[in-house]
């Protein structure tokens, strides 16, 4: 695949994925009201049309086929009005549409992963066609077929009369006359595929145009006049007809007798011409050419970009790596700016004009930074809308009446974070419905609740972080059951009576824990919440669970707004400078040797707010020379990360800074530097490097050397 194709494919994937996302959202909303509006039908029709067109262009036949048949289905609905469907048909239509978008999506995924696409989609296509047949009604269907048959019959007259049939054709008694679907493209190759298929059956036959394999120009001829296959006996004709019938992208084919060679029945050759319409969606197909002229892809894009005409969005899609590069560059500018303005060469000089310009520069770089940050911000609505789909599927499959309420879906967060919360949110929502909401409506009514369960998905901003919470009004979590189960699984680390409510709920996120003894399709494999915790921590977030028995539970994710820039506290240990993310710091304080107590194993602890916390000495952990070793000389920093809380002993605090987070060089990855509590580095105003500590891992690393 060459470079231009690569770009085309990227555009295709982006476009198709966004169309499918749009479709999903539309379907969910439509299903809620139980009906499609006229706009919806048009929208689906248009989307499918675009998918069909672009898939055909890139030769993803299976995607094209599915989209094509759905398009036919909606063409019928559009022509006859949605009201012609009764309720059962509508619900069938919804199920089919959900299934179709899933199918399309799974095929798109295969394209993304460079896997071969499914080739046999006949059963799926027949399912779509089956529904179309059902809604259009048998009687209408047969009449429609008849009408096309006659239309096709008359059709054959003219081309045949004018057709310069090759000489060989005159000597064969039977023909099959094949028309391909409008706009399926590469008709000559499709015809050649039929030829190959016939050859495999070892039939004796001729075909016209006979240069389909070598002459691309023959495609036009086939579009105009159809493709002829000539056979020598009636038996072969039937065999050939089945082969043709099994081929793809055939609009219609008919079996004809050659009048010149056939002496038997010259009186009414037309009546003999048996027209078989391959596609039961014939009314749509025969009418379709008018409504879907095969315009090249760009104009189609325009059509979908502005589906309602009036709405015009000035959006462009940019490669994320370019934004990352911009971000990095802006970070450099900010740092360089402060290097220039606080240069030691300027010390003691009184430069009014310089200071004025420097202030102006600072303002501009701040604005630049804000804007480049905002470029990476996207709203969480995409992820939230996906949850709608999950709730809908689970509702159907688990037979529970649940509604999903979404609050604050327009909250914007960094793109990497949006990508990162998709999977965790899915797990949590599934858990909420599967474990949270009561199994039977009676239970809910008995508890005095609304028979319909509710799951609330909300997102809010708080300064530097975004809080996403999933709460349900189900039965809540039974802390005793959790504790008992944890004890059974042997994951308790202290006596059962020592566990607080919060700690018990934290047990849920321990690997290998699952309260449902039965494994369902949606949850219960015991990989749910610990994966959630890991994924959320990977993007710098924290998960917490609250629950009240009988009233429901709430899972909260606290995630920093952006990963690229963080507020950090600079600290020094010996000659090294480290940065601790401000979000991890609870408090910094001086202590004396007398405040320190030792636990039985000899580890140092200190009392903060009526609880004892272990002390981690940074200089010991990292073996830094020339650092303060006496508690009195340094400072203790009470830090917290996910469920870890401890005090870090450092020499002194230098100050608070906004830092641009840089990953460590790739060469260092082999030394498992992440495990030693280092999450990245940042470049300070004076050009030196400061190492950013990952508070959770610092503790793990420290425990390792205890």
């Amino acid at each position, binding site marked *: 695949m060459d470079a231009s194709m690569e770009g085309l494919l990227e555009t295709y994937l982006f476009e198709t994925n966004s169309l499918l996302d749009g479709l999903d959202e539309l379907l969910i909303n439509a299903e809620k009201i139980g009906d499609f509006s006229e706009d919806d039908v048009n929208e689906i029709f248009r989307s499918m049309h675009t998918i069909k067109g672009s898939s055909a262009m890139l030769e993803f036949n299976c995607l094209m086929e599915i989209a094509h048949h759905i398009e036919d289905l909606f063409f019928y609905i559009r022509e006859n009005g949605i009201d012609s469907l009764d309720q059962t048909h509508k619900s069938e239509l919804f199920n089919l549409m959900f299934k179709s978008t899933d199918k399309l999506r799974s095929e798109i995924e295969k394209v993304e992963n460079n896997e071969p696409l499914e080739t046999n989609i006949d059963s799926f296509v027949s399912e779509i066609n089956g529904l179309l047949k059902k809604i259009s009604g048998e009687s209408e269907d047969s009449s429609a077929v008849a009408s096309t048959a006659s239309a096709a019959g008359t059709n054959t007259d003219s081309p045949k009369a004018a057709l310069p049939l090759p000489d060989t054709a005159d000597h064969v008694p039977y023909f099959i006359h094949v028309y391909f679907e409008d706009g399926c493209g590469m008709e000559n190759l499709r015809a050649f595929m039929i030829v190959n298929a016939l050859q495999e059956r070892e039939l004796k036959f001729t075909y016209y145009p006979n240069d389909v394999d070598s002459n691309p120009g023959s495609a036009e001829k086939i579009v105009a006049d159809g493709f002829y296959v000539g056979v020598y006996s009636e038996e072969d004709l039937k065999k050939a007809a089945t082969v043709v019938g099994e081929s793809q992208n055939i609009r219609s084919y008919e079996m004809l007798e050659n009048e010149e060679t056939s002496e038997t029945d010259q009186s009414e050759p037309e009546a003999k011409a048996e027209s078989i319409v391959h596609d039961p969606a014939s009314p749509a197909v025969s009418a379709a050419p008018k409504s879907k002229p095969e315009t090249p892809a760009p104009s189609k894009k325009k059509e979908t970009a502005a589906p309602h005409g009036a709405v015009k969005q000035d959006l462009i899609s940019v490669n994320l790596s370019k934004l990352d590069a911009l971000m990095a560059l802006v970070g450099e500018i900010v740092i360089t700016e402060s290097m220039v303005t606080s240069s030691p060469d300027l010390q003691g000089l009184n430069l009014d004009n310089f200071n004025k310009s420097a202030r102006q520069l600072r303002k501009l770089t701040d604005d630049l930074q804000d804007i480049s940050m905002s470029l990476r911000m996207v709203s969480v609505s995409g992820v939230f809308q996906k949850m709608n789909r999950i709730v809908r599927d689970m509702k159907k499959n688990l037979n529970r009446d649940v509604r999903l309420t979404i609050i604050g879906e327009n909250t914007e967060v960094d793109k990497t974070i949006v990508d990162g919360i998709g999977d965790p949110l899915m797990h949590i929502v599934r858990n909420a419905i599967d474990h949270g909401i009561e199994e039977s409506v009676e239970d809910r009514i008995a508890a005095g609740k609304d028979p319909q369960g509710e799951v609330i998905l909300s997102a809010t901003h708080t300064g530097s972080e975004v809080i996403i919470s999933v709460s349900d009004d189900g039965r809540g979590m039974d802390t005793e059951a959790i504790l008992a189960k944890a004890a059974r699984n042997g994951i308790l680390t202290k006596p059962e009576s020592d566990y607080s409510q919060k700690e018990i709920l934290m047990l849920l996120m321990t690997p290998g824990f699952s309260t449902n003894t039965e494994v369902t399709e949606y949850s219960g494999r015991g990989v749910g919440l610990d994966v959630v915790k890991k994924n959320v921590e990977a993007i710098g977030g924290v998960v917490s669970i609250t629950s009240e028995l009988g009233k429901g539970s709430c899972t909260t994710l606290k995630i920093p707004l952006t990963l690229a820039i963080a507020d950090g506290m600079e600290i020094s240990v010996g000659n090294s400078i480290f940065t601790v993310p401000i979000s991890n710091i609870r408090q910094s304080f001086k202590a004396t040797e007398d405040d320190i107590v030792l636990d039985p194993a000899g580890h140092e602890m200190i009392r903060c707010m009526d609880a004892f916390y272990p002390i981690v000495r940074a200089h010991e952990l990292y073996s830094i020379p020339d650092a303060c070793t006496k508690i009195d000389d340094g400072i203790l920093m009470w830090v917290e990360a996910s469920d870890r809380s401890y005090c870090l002993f450092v020499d002194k605090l230098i100050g608070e800074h906004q830092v641009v987070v840089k990953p460590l060089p790739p060469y*260092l990855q082999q030394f498992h530097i992440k495990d030693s509590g280092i999450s990245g580095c940042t470049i300070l105003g004076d050009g*030196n490097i400061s190492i950013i500590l990952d508070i959770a891992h610092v503790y793990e690393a420290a425990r390792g050397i205890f």
Partner: protein
Amino acid sequence: MAETIDIVENKVEEDAHNPKNVQRFLTFVSDNITFGVSTDYVIEIISSYMICTLPMVPDYIKGIINLRGQTIPIIDIRLRMGKMPQDYTATTCIIILEINDISVGIVVDSVTQVLDIDLDRIAPIPTQNQQELTSSMISREDGSVVLFLDCEELIRQ
């Protein structure tokens, strides 16, 4: 690309006594041994840089430096080859290498010169003199020996 290789080969055949199969190598000294590294890998040579030490890494990783906004890990080639450490002096410098898109800096005792070396004359190192990270050597006319640094080996995980 294929064409240029052809040309070089042809020339060699035509005139075996005046070989053109020459590559430029930067030579440097570490622990009194002269090493050569292909200039294809060399980005630049810097001296006196502020190295930020990293905790919990092997001793030969001296830390990272900030080179115009890029963070580059620094390897002390002495320690990497299992030699005794030596205090950095005025001649000590860092050679920045880019090997398969990975940038690293190596600390060497001093940089000497850039040499044109005929690739055909490069010979494997006798096993008893085998050095870590080197695979081949060349004896020069003045009797000195240059060992070639195996850059791929240097960054091997």
